[in-house]
């Protein structure tokens, strides 16, 4: 089911990878509790949280276990009830060891002030400052993938004003359907969450952008949006990377966020649909961010599904629930096919910013031989930022970082469209990432 009419989108660049939305019709299932969870103290951009429990302590669901220190940081809460058995450095997705709290699950006892009933609570009784404090306290971070602490995004710099709130329901990555299912199954709660965000930001208008391959979500939300003044649903053409903040703002408002600036510089603030839902739960139900919806998918999996998962659950546990790791698996990815991170151990835990786990068979994991650039200019055509990947790669190889900066390498979103389209299998994005790192280093030294 798709909508047949001229739809909004951004103009420059973009690609159309296969969609593989295997789980868009699978209702969200609640995953049973694992025996043990590992909750990393750094699941967000910014300073890691400081542990406030010690070994042997008994914790309840929703109890604070890590205190976010400083402005850009986030609180960490226990996602289960039980006993703290270890506070140690344990490997995260990247394989590097990071401070973590390991909790052995005993029963499922929640903090008393958390409202567990699923009744919709529409009235927003808290004041702006109370809401902000609640969001900060509850450890809410952007659930679209970047995991940037949400309260930081809601406190606008002085002399900047937001005119509109944009809610990102694009989910342009192949396979992922967690946001799609959330919009279908928790649409009203999400709408209340959006109203809360609008109140904090003092804006009258919220625009929800959803791609046309989720027409059922578009119809559903348009239907219920009539009850929520100021919220409008905008169907968008399917195009990757429309879920990128800058591209989504362009598609919905026609405005372009200038190089190295923030959305608020063009008067908008962007939040993800899952974040809006988490904010609803935090503000209306006192529930900190202790679980989220994750798509576990892959053509080779027996039961690709959408699960509600407690933070800290080992990924092995999710994959077992989806039918077990197939024999021919070559790669496991956290996130989407285009921007997700491959990791090598299924023992690592679920973190707040994880929207999907993808399993790829071996024959889809091998890269092809790199051939000479034939200057077909396809990478320039697909780059949504108007950059020239064919040029940035040799500039990085030559170490020409001043020219790289002039060619605006820092604008790269790392969406991967250039590497995807390259007929000569050139690892354009790999080199551009290196170039970005080095240019950033030079800029820091200059200060």
């Amino acid at each position, binding site marked *: 089911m798709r909508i047949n009419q001229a739809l909004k989108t951004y103009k420059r660049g973009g690609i159309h*990878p296969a969609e593989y939305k295997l789980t868009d019709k699978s209702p969200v299932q609640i995953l049973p509790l694992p025996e043990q969870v590992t909750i990393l103290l750094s699941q967000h951009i910014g300073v890691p949280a400081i542990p406030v429990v010690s070994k042997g302590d008994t914790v309840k669901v929703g109890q604070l276990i890590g205190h976010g220190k400083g402005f850009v940081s986030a609180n960490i809460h226990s996602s289960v009830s039980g006993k703290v058995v270890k506070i140690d450095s344990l490997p995260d997705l990247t394989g590097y060891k990071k401070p973590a709290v390991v909790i052995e699950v005993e029963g499922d006892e929640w903090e008393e002030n958390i409202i567990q009933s699923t009744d919709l609570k529409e009235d927003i009784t808290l004041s702006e400052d109370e809401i902000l404090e609640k969001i900060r306290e509850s450890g809410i971070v952007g659930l679209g993938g970047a995991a940037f602490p949400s309260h930081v995004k809601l406190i606008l710099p002085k002399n900047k004003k937001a005119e509109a709130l944009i809610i990102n329901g694009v989910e342009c990555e192949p396979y992922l359907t967690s946001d799609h299912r959330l919009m279908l199954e928790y649409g009203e709660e999400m709408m209340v969450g959006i109203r809360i965000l609008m109140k904090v930001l003092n804006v009258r208008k919220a625009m929800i952008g959803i791609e046309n391959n989720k027409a059922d979500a578009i119809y559903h939300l348009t239907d219920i949006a009539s009850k929520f003044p100021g919220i409008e649903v905008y169907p968008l053409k399917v195009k990757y990377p429309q879920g990128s903040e800058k591209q989504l703002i362009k598609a919905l408002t026609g405005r372009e966020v200038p190089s190295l600036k923030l959305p608020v510089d063009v008067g908008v603030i962007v939040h993800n649909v899952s974040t809006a839902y988490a904010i609803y739960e935090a503000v209306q139900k006192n529930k900190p961010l202790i679980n989220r919806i994750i798509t576990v998918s892959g053509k080779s999996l027996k039961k690709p599904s959408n699960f509600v998962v407690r933070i800290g659950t080992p990924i092995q546990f999710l994959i077992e629930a989806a039918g077990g790791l197939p024999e021919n698996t070559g790669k496991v990815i956290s996130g989407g096919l285009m921007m997700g991170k491959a990791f090598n151990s299924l023992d690592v835990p679920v973190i707040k910013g994880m929207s999907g786990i993808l399993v790829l068979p071996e024959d889809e994991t091998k890269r092809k031989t790199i051939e000479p650039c034939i200057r077909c200019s396809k990478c320039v055509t697909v780059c949504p930022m108007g950059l020239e990947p064919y040029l940035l790669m040799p500039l990085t190889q030559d170490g020409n970082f001043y020219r790289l900066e002039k060619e605006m390498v820092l604008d790269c979103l790392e969406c991967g469209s250039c590497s995807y389209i390259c007929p000569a299998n050139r690892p354009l994005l790999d080199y551009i990432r290196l170039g970005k790192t080095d240019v950033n280093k030079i800029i820091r030294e200059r200060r």
Partner: protein
Amino acid sequence: MNKLLTVSPSPHIYGKDTTPNLMYGVIIALIPAILASILYFGWGSVIVISVAVISSVLFEFLIQRFLLQKKTTIQDGSAVITGLLLSLCLPSNFPVSLIILGSLFAIGVGKLSFGGLGNNPFNPALVGRVFLFISFPAKMTSWPEAKGFQTQFIDASTGATPLNIIKEGLGKGDSISHLMDKIPTYQQLFFGNMGGSIGEVAAVALILGLAYLLLRKIITWHIPVSIILTVVIFTGILWLVNPAQNADPLFHILSGGILLGAIFMATDYVTSPMTSKGMILYGICIGILTVVIRRFGSYPEGVQFAILIMNGFVPLINYYIKPKRFGEEVKNG
């Protein structure tokens, strides 16, 4: 877990385009032109095309294998394209030995001396063609008439191309209206029933090829459209100012090598600009240079030189003409 998983940076999925795919796409787009050339010039055309293609591929293989001693790249299809494009801009009675020499020059000097596919600054097929044109001008300008398989190619009657007729006629002081009676009708020009290089005569076949290239997204519209439009506008102005001395735009487009050049030669990936703005600038310059050479130069046809000259400017165009960056134009309304 006892199995090792692959860890690599994103993206984890790749598109279906490969270099050979794109090259074979260009070859498919050339099929109508090849068929038309065989229809009009018969065996002569078959021989010219097969000799050029086989010798181009063979020279690429031999030079890479024995002279450069590295991996051969003949399977990517680019040598086939060079051979095809070279043959399509030769006359149908062109001597076999010279075709082989032209292929050697195109592949050896035009392409491999610069480092092979992706590194050559000039279009190899045009390098070969211009080499032949300058070294053997008499052989390169004897154009058998299009008579299909009925004619024995050895003693085919030769005649001038429409562009030659105009150029020489104007030189002698004839007026255009008088000369237009001597050249084929527009219908003949469109379907290719005239003297000329084997691949450039049938406009309709070349346009079919263009449609295929655009549909498969192998090239974008920027280069061919900007060249053709520029030629139409420039010759249109000349024609309106002085109709007695200048042929009309439609004649210019349909005769000579403009369509073959604009669709297949100027759009060569390696030797054309990387940004759409750059492509349009490149196309406009080719269009202007072509008309200037045709009208004011000593050669009747100028598209080959125009493309080669602009090939030389491509690095400069790439350096100065940048794509429009995201966020460059800030609208704060």
